[in-house]
């Protein structure tokens, strides 16, 4: 009996993992993507200079929202081409069990190429 309950629970967790694991990407219709000639990726980001953020943000009762700044050597133009946000079961769970004080952030973004 306990074994069956455990199996059902396991299946539910796995299913939840799949259904709550999704990503959404927004892509600009203007501007040229910042290229990455060293790219060896085999996905949407092939040849694009991708910047990945995979971190846990600590929030306090006074924190309403979190911003990241697109800049640096990999984002010289400081302008965005695309942003992909990924949500996962683990992230949702973390949010729930920490009552929102720990927020897992998984973002991929690509900047625009610098105009010369």
């Amino acid at each position, binding site marked *: 009996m306990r074994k069956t309950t455990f199996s059902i629970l396991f299946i539910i967790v796995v299913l939840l993992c799949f259904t709550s694991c999704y990503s959404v990407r927004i*892509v600009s*219709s203007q501007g*040229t993507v910042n290229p990455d*000639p*060293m790219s060896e990726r*085999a996905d949407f980001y092939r*040849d694009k200079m991708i910047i990945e953020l995979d971190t846990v943000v600590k929030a306090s009762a006074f924190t309403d929202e979190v911003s990241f700044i697109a800049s640096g050597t990999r984002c010289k133009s400081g302008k965005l081409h695309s942003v992909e946000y990924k949500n996962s079961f683990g992230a949702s769970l973390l949010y729930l069990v920490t009552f929102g004080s720990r927020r897992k952030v998984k973002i991929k973004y690509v900047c625009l*190429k610098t*105009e010369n």
Partner: protein
Amino acid sequence: MAHTTTYAKTSWDTLHNNGPFPLKYLQITELESNSTLPNAIARYNDATLEIQQLIQQALAHNQGFRAYGSRWSMSSIAHQKDRLHYNGYMNLDIPIPVDAVRSDSPYQVENLFFFQCGNTIKEISQKLSQSGKSLKTSGASNGQTIAGCISTGVHGSALDVGAIQDYVVGIQLITGPKAKDVLYLERHTKPALTSAFVHQLNATVIRNDELFNAALVSLGSFGFIHGVVIEAEDRFLLHRYVRKVDKQLALSLADTMDFSSQVLIPEAVDRNGKPLRPYHYKVFINQYVNDPQYVIEVMYKKPYVTPYPDPFTIINKSLYRDLIHLLIKISEKYPKTIPWFIKKLEKQILPDVNEETLGTLYETFWDAPYQGPAFACSFGVDHKDSSKVLELLTKTTLQEGPIPGIFAMRFVKGGKATLGFTKFPITCVIEIDGVLWQKTNKLISLKEYSNKMITVLQQHNIDFTLHWGKNADWSYPGLINYMYSAKAEEWKKFRTALLRPELARVFSNHFLESTKLSDSVSVVPQDLIVSL
């Protein structure tokens, strides 16, 4: 100073994994920042010096040096086993002032634009749009660099316009490390820039039609193309329709290019109800189904007026790459499943029938999503031979395959480039695109497949060419001679005259050697490349 980072590498690949190919060094040049050097010409000249140094290094090490753009070519044309140079960050545009255009030039100054080699079609379109201008034509997508495009002869399906190199009016080449190796070429019968302006680029002008035509589609082998001057035109809109029409009609339009006797799109007619001539005509063919109809795409040119509906679909879906990979693995083992898979994927591969959009050239031929390892074989034939060649090639594909791809036909007005593969008055480009597979005991290799197609066309005495940037059995005996005969000799003659022997070696590669285009010509008239 512009600076170059050199990475030691062991291999290099194309965007669509048609390699890997061996490599020693990958070099990436970045320009001096415009805050340090605000003058565009100064930064351009600074980059010239940097490229000359790289050529000097290659010479000193007795190695090859080859520029590449977006690595979108699927043949090995962009590969060099020693040193490859990535141009993507060299994306300056230099304003052409009114007094920089010769008074006897047939071009209007507001239509002339100077772009550095690494500008992509997308970047150029955006820059032109800021002046209310547009490219005359592009390929089906926008990620290639301008130098990469002209080096292989990129085309769309603009039947009365031509390919990209056909609106290039000037080319700035770096052929070696010496000051005299910086050249600016244009046609003597159609000059554009004043010598005074060209001298600001530290370049020597050569106005010579034949040299210019040879350098236009140079396969990356006439030196480093640093900049190009193009002729743009006023921005326009394209009204695009996708329809299904009877096979016979689609093919007869291809064979005749006569659009005047059949109303294809009821609203695409003139005041007297006569059908308009389309700007673009494309036919899609799934050789594995016996459908009495083909999907066609036609576009009509319209004046640019705003507002017009947003041509972008908000949600874009692309095929799941792992699924494609799985299908290919199954197909390699069980090739008979290929037609079934293609039928199932038809909806994703072909445009939606009855789809209609209105947009600029930039918006119509937009980004292509990366779909994993891919192949493309592309033949150029006289449009009058379209249906005949299509039949021969699809038959070969059914006999030798099935091959995991489908056919399409596009149509391009002929140009003047010596080795342009759009060499017929209107070239029908018959292409098969698909996912890359591995040879198995049940499925022939891509090279063997290409070999069979070349053989069948030769057996039927079909005059044809091949897209330089696409897959083919490039070492097929006598291939170049069959396609270009005297034109190939002429091209080699100009290359021999332009490059000192040691530099001809630097700018050569395996592709050029296997096609025998790297051979020098023993007798070259002394005045062959003089300015006229």
